[in-house]
C-alpha cells in the first residue's frame, strides 16, 4: 500500500513537471518563465523528498535544502537583472 502511494506520488509529480515545462516554453514574457522555473525547483524538492523516502536515505534532505536555497537565489538574481534592464518591447 505504502509503495503504491509512493509510486502515485512520482506519477503526479511527473505530470506536474510536464505541465510547468509547457508554461516555461510558452512564456510569453521573461518573468513568466522565471516563475515557471521557480515552480520546477519546488517540484524537484518534492522529488528529492519522495526519493529520500523511497531509498530510505535521509541524507537526501540536505540536497533539498541546497536546491531550495539555490532556487531562491536564482529568482533574486533574475529579478535584479530584469529590474536593471527595464522595459523592452517585442520580447
Amino acid at each position, binding site marked *: 500500500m505504502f509503495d503504491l502511494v509512493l509510486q502515485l*506520488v512520482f506519477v503526479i509529480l511527473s505530470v506536474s513537471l510536464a505541465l510547468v515545462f509547457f*508554461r516555461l516554453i510558452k512564456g510569453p*514574457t521573461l518573468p513568466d518563465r522565471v516563475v515557471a522555473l521557480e*515552480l520546477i525547483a519546488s517540484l524537484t524538492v518534492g522529488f528529492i523528498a519522495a526519493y529520500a523516502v523511497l531509498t530510505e536515505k535521509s541524507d537526501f*534532505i540536505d540536497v533539498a535544502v541546497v536546491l*531550495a536555497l539555490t532556487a531562491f537565489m536564482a529568482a533574486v538574481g533574475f529579478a*535584479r537583472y530584469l*529590474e536593471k534592464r*527595464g*522595459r523592452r518591447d517585442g520580447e
Partner: protein
Amino acid sequence: MVSEFLTGLFMLVGALLMLVASIGILRMPDLLIRMHATTKAGALGGGLMVLSVAFFFDDGAVTARAVATVIFIILTAPVAAHIIGRAAYFVGLPLWEHTVKDDLEGRYDPETHTLSSGEVKDKQTPG
C-alpha cells in the same frame, strides 16, 4: 505503521497541491495570478512533502533539518513573489483583460525605482 500512514498522507497531499499549482500556472491568465499558484500551492506542497520525510525517519536530526527546510521554503516564497512581481512591473506587465483595478499603475518611478504611495483614498468608496 502510524508514521508510514502519516508519511503517505502528507506526501500525497503535497504532491496533489503541486499538481494544482502546475495546472494553475498553465491555465491562469496573467503573471500575477500565476504567482498565486506558485507561492501558495507550490510552497505548501513542497513543505508538506519535506515534512513527510521527517515523519518517515522519525529521528531528531532529520526532523530538525526537515523543519528548517520547510521554514525556509515558506519564508522565501512570498519574498520571491515580491521581487519578481516588482521586476515584472518595470519590464512591463500585461494584465488580464478582466482585471478590476490596478492601483500600482504608474506609481513606480522608472528612474529612481521608488514607489510612491500616491493620493490614497483613505476611505475607499464602495463600487
